[in-house]
């Protein structure tokens, strides 16, 4: 089981799901129509490290964070 958290303005409660790779996470999140628009604009962190590869293998207890567009300062 992995945990997916939605940061900043997305305003969605964290989810837990079974997923072997980030590609699995993508498939499951896209089932939620309210998330599809966000996913196009969001970057991803795995256990607080930014990642850019759908093939990354996940393990039990991993945390996937969804980061929407930013504007600090």
């Amino acid at each position: 089981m992995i945990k997916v958290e939605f940061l900043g303005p997305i305003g969605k409660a964290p989810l837990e799901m079974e997923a072997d790779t980030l590609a699995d996470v993508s498939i499951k999140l896209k089932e939620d129509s309210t998330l599809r628009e966000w996913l196009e604009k969001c970057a991803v962190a795995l256990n607080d490290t930014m990642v850019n590869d759908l093939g990354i293998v996940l393990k039990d207890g991993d945390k996937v964070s969804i980061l929407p567009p930013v504007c600090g300062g």
Partner: protein
Amino acid sequence: MELYNGPLDVKEIFGRWLDEQADSNYGAYIPFVGTIRAEDDIEALSFDIYEPVLQTWFDTWQEKAKALGAVVKMAHAKGDVPVHTSSYVSAVFSPKRRVALELIDVFVEDFKANAPIWKYDVKNGERIYAADRSTAMNGAGLLA
């Protein structure tokens, strides 16, 4: 890296950073102050920060600065920051001015593009995500 609830005490932070580096033999100290402007009838801006990724981002910049013989510093506000107060300060110390002048430019621009901080306008007490001023981070769209 320093995070504060509400507006920054800019004079205290810059004064303290100056004191901390007083004996470091840096010839240049370039500060940057971000101040909330009164526009579009906002009362304040408000900020959410994801601290673990921000810390990693900042640590990477400290390493880049170190390789140039320089030091980068930053402080940012969380929560509401009223107009005409400061939400963000940063600075670069370096032995000579050229490195600090160039580094403050790229550091602040990368901060705007990749620091995990979300901005909201505050109007009539309501927080409204500043979607049109926000930038998708490197790697955005991976799960789309």
